[in-house]
């Protein structure tokens, strides 16, 4: 299972990438997209919305099932990837390129709570 080394992760199978000094991009991992199967619908949060950590703020829906996506850290939604509404399958094709939304974070310390690639990969192995 693909777990890029330059990202951080959550136990709910989201990945987090730094996108500037105070912005992070968020998506779902390869494990998550494989478990869901072909995505057919993506619902993204409104720009301007403030979210708490672990707050459900997006939905990814495959032919099989719908799944909530949770904010990995607290922050304000500053961008959403509207390209996905026409082509939700991009998340399956390129899970680490197809970001869902971006958050402006208040300070860096919140990132310390996220999982390192090694820890996430090990959690996947243990769960398998």
């Amino acid at each position, binding site marked *: 299972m693909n777990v890029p080394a330059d990202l951080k992760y959550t136990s709910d199978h989201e990945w987090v990438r730094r996108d500037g000094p105070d912005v992070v991009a968020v998506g779902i991992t390869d494990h998550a997209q*494989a478990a869901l*199967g*072909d995505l*057919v*619908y993506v*619902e993204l949060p409104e720009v301007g919305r403030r979210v708490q950590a672990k707050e459900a703020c997006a*939905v990814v*829906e495959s*032919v*099989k099932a*719908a799944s909530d996506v949770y904010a990995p850290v607290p922050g304000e939604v500053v961008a959403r990837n509207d390209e996905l*509404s026409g082509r939700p*399958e991009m998340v*399956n094709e390129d899970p680490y390129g197809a970001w869902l939304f971006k958050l402006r974070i208040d300070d860096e310390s919140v990132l310390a709570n996220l999982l390192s690639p090694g820890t996430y990969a090990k959690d996947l192995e243990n769960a398998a």
Partner: protein
Amino acid sequence: MPRPTPLNAAHRAFGARMVDFGGWDMPLHYGSQIDEHHAVRREAGMFDVSHMRVVDVRGAQAREFLRYAIANNVDKLRDPGKALYSCLLDRDGGVLDDLIVYYLRDDFYRVVVNAATADKDVAWLRQLAAARAPGLDIEERTDLAMLAVQGPQARAKAWEAFPEVHAATQSLKPFNGVMLTCAEREWFVARTGYTGEDGFELMVPADEAQRVWSALSAIGVRPCGLGARDTLRLEAGLNLYGQDMDERVSPLESGLAWTVDLTADRDFVGRDAVLKTKPLRQLAGLLLLDAGGVLRAHQRVETTAGDGEITSGTFAPTLGKSIALARLPESVPVGDIVHVVVRDKRLAARVVKPPFARNGRALVS
């Protein structure tokens, strides 16, 4: 532990994501259920359906017994090979299963029932036969595997792989089957399916299954899993037992009135109950109009005549939209706009007459 079919190793070798389906270890998909769906509508795909149960009913009283046991009328089967889709009802008129029966000879009918209900069905048939036709032989053919090859190219591919099948089925009509010999073994090939496309269902000795699968795969027939099977059958407007109907509902409220033959003077199990039933609900098709999600089983449907409920829903790849079957008040007409509660939203959908897609094309938009 779910049971393997004779093709378990082949599924795993091909990278299947496996699931427990009614106690069977089955392939959900082999990478993309949407691609598999398109392969069936555009070319040819194949499904391992060995989890279904083939039941041979043999004896002098076979025909008379089946006239009584099932809701559709086997007297319609005049020519050997012809098949019939029917419900199996209980005495209260509830649906025990849906099935296909093939007329082979006056003393030999082949019945194919669903996997999850097979044990129940066979026990029920044997119970009925003990009273009505004690000499009848009801045999579960667990020595057989079944593969469904479906799509516009399906028959051509089957013929290319198996010339002996070609010779015997060149002029086999839709909804007919024939017993034949292939490589000195007995096969049954039926021009039936569950996808809305043309094709064959091949019932072969279990020890032949791998060879048949490999031969078809080698000439480009795509393995397809249960995920594609469900989107294909729903687009084709075909019911799924356990979701669209079960023992608690009447065939008249399940879109299956056409399978219950009341025209002949024929006593059959459930007849009296059906005659007494005035259906208050119908099984209708829904096409989702608003963006906001996917129609799914158990979602509430709000209509001008009262609430209903979706029984089966999915995203339909051939349409590029979400569709459903829903049990609605009887009076809601085709064309009405209804609202489905999806998460925290009310999404508009249009009532349509199934099928939604067949023979490679969308039929509704």
